[in-house]
């Protein structure tokens, strides 16, 4: 039997070794499964969940902003944004090429946005393009199965219908920066928009809603399978402003080609009716990813369009300050209303000659005419009698040198100088001559247009000052000033004459049918030793023109303060705008008055 004797011992020896090797490999693989499934199982489970559950933020709509008559001034329009989730991408380069072809955007911007958002390693969708057109959306959606890494997000784009007209009051939005993300407790995420200026900044908490979240289960191609959970977004609260769009528009129109500020407020409540700073800018450019050139143009513009001149610029008050001087003089009993001062066009105090703006002089002037015709000589003497300490005291009592407390951020407090300030900040003693300069609102004293508006409100209400505010508010924070009401009555009468008397400097603001009272002011930008007409100077050396006023029509009042930078005399540069604003604001009263 050949087969029986055939040699198979060797085979039988080697076979178990082969089996052992196979079992060894099998064990090795089992160990690997143990490691992946049991030791690292949590990690892979998380990855599986991350694969499956897509968390979408439901962006809360920002609150709308209305002006006084219920007209919308800040709204949201739908905007389509493109998100890219690199962790879902099988071929990121191909996806980016596709996006570049589908969008009318420079390729580099997509890639920059991707890198800013965390780059190719990100596990979160990154916003790479905003404000897509409908055709762009269609192009992306058409190939959504091929490119599951893309998602179109319907966002909100802030739109300021009136653009530059309401820019400084409303402000604008900006993307949160790393500092906001780190310091604020609110759950900001990169790419979120928050208020950066104006009402948008000051009322950010009110306007900003609470983002919701929607978790959906998707398959490997990003197709929606089912909803997993939903936490609805809470829209922000709407905000009503006391602002009057008609006044804003008129003021903006008036300032075309000029620089300056207008503020109008209701003296009874402190509600701001108009706040215009010129030149302005278009806040809508901030609603999208900001174009660097546009930003640089705004920042570097010499006329500083981003500045809200109503609260952020300070100026010498000029002759407007004579109101404070009169209040101080009357309160302190330094002035006898009947007593006259001789104005011969100039006077000599502290061994220096002080000029009146009127070369020929005013002759014998008492307080009323001194205010009406803005006689400088009268106030030089009053200043000397009062001294800087008392001038400073009454300035502060009337709201200068401190913030008005308006409900916007970034307000400047101006400067009320006194010897203490001089020693502390300048390191030099106060010179008596400076008191004489301050007496007519020149020298180191500085005010914001809004401070002048609160000063006028005090005169208009015989001694009340309400905290100014742009947002409509049910409660009014009102302060009765220490200066007695009769003082304001006297001043008010003089201010009425400024506008309504034959020789008043503010006659350009006269509106038949309503009672307008005001004070002009002209601020020398460059000290003039002689009488030179402002119009003959180069623009940047021309005087600033003030017109600070209030008007009463029945039981309604309005304060209007106009400042025209380098506009020359307040009487010609600033007063005409006040007149127009009064005509608009009181048009119902005026119409009724004519018909009755």
């Amino acid at each position, binding site marked *: 039997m050949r*087969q029986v004797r*055939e*040699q*198979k011992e060797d085979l039988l020896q080697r*076979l178990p070794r082969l089996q052992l090797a196979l079992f060894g490999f099998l064990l090795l*693989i089992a160990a*690997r*499964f143990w490691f992946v499934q049991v030791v690292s199982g949590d990690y892979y*489970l998380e990855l599986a969940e991350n694969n499956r559950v897509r968390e979408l933020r439901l962006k809360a709509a920002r609150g709308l902003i209305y002006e006084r008559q219920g007209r919308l001034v800040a709204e949201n329009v739908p905007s389509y944004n493109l998100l890219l989730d690199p962790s879902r991408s099988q*071929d990121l380069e191909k996806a980016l090429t596709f996006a570049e072809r589908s969008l009318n955007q420079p390729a580099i911007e997509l890639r920059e946005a991707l890198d800013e958002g965390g780059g190719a390693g990100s596990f979160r969708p990154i916003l790479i393009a905003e404000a897509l057109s409908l055709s762009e959306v269609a192009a992306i959606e058409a190939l959504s199965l091929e490119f599951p890494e893309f998602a179109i997000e319907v966002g909100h784009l802030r739109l300021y219908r009136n653009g530059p007209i309401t820019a400084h009051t409303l402000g604008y939005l900006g993307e949160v920066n790393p500092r906001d993300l780190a310091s604020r407790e609110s759950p900001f995420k990169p790419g979120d928009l928050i208020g950066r200026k104006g009402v948008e900044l000051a009322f950010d908490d009110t306007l900003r809603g609470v983002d919701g979240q929607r978790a959906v289960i998707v398959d490997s191609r990003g197709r929606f399978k089912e909803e997993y959970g939903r936490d609805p977004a809470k829209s922000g609260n709407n905000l009503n402003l006391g602002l009057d769009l008609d006044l804003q528009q008129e003021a903006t129109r008036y300032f075309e080609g000029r620089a300056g500020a207008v503020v109008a407020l209701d003296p009874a409540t402190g509600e701001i009716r108009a706040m215009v700073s010129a030149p302005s800018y278009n806040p809508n450019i901030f609603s999208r990813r900001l174009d660097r050139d546009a930003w640089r143009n705004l920042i570097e513009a010499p006329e500083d369009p981003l500045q809200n001149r109503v609260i952020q610029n300070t100026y010498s008050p000029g002759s407007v300050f004579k109101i404070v001087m009169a209040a101080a003089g009357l309160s302190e009993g330094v002035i006898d209303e009947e007593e006259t001062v001789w104005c011969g066009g100039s006077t000599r105090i502290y061994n220096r000659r002080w000029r009146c703006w009127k070369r020929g002089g005013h002759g014998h002037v008492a307080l009323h005419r001194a205010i009406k015709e803005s006689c400088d000589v009268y106030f030089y003497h009053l200043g000397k009698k009062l001294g800087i300490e008392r001038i400073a005291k009454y300035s502060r009592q009337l709201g200068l040198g401190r913030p008005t407390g308006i409900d916007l951020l970034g307000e400047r407090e101006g400067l009320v100088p006194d010897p203490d300030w001089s020693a502390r900040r300048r390191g030099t003693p106060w010179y008596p001559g400076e008191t004489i300069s301050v007496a007519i609102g020149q020298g180191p004293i500085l005010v914001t247009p809004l401070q002048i508006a609160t000063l006028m409100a005090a005169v208009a209400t015989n001694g009340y000052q309400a905290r100014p505010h742009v947002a409509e508010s049910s409660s009014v924070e009102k302060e009765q000033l220490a200066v007695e009401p009769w003082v304001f009555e006297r001043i008010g009468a003089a201010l009425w004459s400024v506008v309504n008397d034959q020789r008043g400097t503010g006659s350009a603001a006269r509106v038949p049918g309503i009672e307008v009272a005001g004070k002009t002011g002209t601020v020398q930008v460059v000290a003039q030793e002689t009488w030179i007409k402002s119009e003959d100077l180069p623009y940047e050396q021309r005087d600033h023109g003030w017109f600070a006023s209030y008007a009463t029509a029945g039981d309604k009042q309005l304060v209007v303060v106009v400042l025209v930078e380098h506009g020359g005399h307040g009487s010609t540069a600033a007063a005409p705008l006040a007149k127009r604003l009064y005509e608009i604001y009181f048009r119902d009263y005026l119409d009724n008055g004519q018909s009755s």
Partner: protein
Amino acid sequence: MRSTSGTISTTASLPDERPFLRQLATVRWALLISALLISLIGLITVHSASSELSIDYLPRQALWLGLGLLVFVVAFSLDYQSLTKFSLPIYTVAMVMLLLVLLVGKEAGGARSWLGVGAYRLQPSEFAKIATALLLARYLAGINRRFLSFGQIMAASSIVALPMVLVALESDLGGAAMFVPMLAGMLVVAGVPWRYFAVGAGVALVLAAVGWNLVMLDYQKDRVRSFMSPGSDPQGTGYQLRQSKIAVGSGQLTGRGYQQGTQSQLRFLPARHTDFIFAVLAEEWGFIGVAMVLILYGLYIGNGTKVALRARDRSGILLIVGLLSGFAFHVLYNTAMVVGLVPITGIPLPFLSYGGSFTLANFIATGLILGVDFRRHVNR
């Protein structure tokens, strides 16, 4: 075990009426049982993996399983000694079939249906492997020496080289590669001096380098590249690797539950019902399920080895070794691939993956192995 060879003559001398059924009962049915258990698990898993596919592959796979049992019976009843005797003609037929696939298969995609099993295509390469194992077993069994000579090794290799080249020409590198472990297993058991292994390793390296540069297609290279560095992701093979690992890992110890695996149910897994079926199983049944199936595969290999150890002659032993080696390599490579240990290649998992020819081939192999066991006492 050597004692069994001593009993051969005594059992063979038993009276002719020795009951056929009693002999049948002594066959190592555990081998078939483990194959059937794995197949049943396969049916369940194929069903789960199909839930997001266009059709449910469970009925088809059940049909293949039924056909598999049929071919098992046929293979079991065929005398392996006769088969090895006629292995050269069988081998020749198989090679002609491979050649035909190569020629006709290029004309149309469904050209393989000429084998005529309904609408289902058959992959002749799976059967060519068995034919090759038969011829190899015959050749090596005839060499009654402790160690093979170099020439004999080369001769054995050339038997395998022909079908390998033909299959590789079909661009089925994975299928071609499956011939190598079969050959290796049989050579090891038939006796290869250790120095040849060293030489073989060197040759393999050279061949790999040549293959990389001249033979491999770009997509194949990408698979290897993406395995080497999963971060780079040129064609999404790193993605597949990653998704498979996530599926496996997220199964944790006890699994996410039947049809609850998000990776497979939400289509993150590629080739869920075929090459990556084990990832589906790992996701839904966890490590416990993985361990159970691996144990079943271990039982199959162990029982197969037992059968080989008590086989009657060299050709029986070598045939089993060849079939088992191929089988084991499929199991090891596929599971290692699913868990991210080796590059992705189209190598299915025996009895678990959906697939007609592959299932049939595995049942034929099982039938042949148990057929060897059934005839361990036959004396001619």
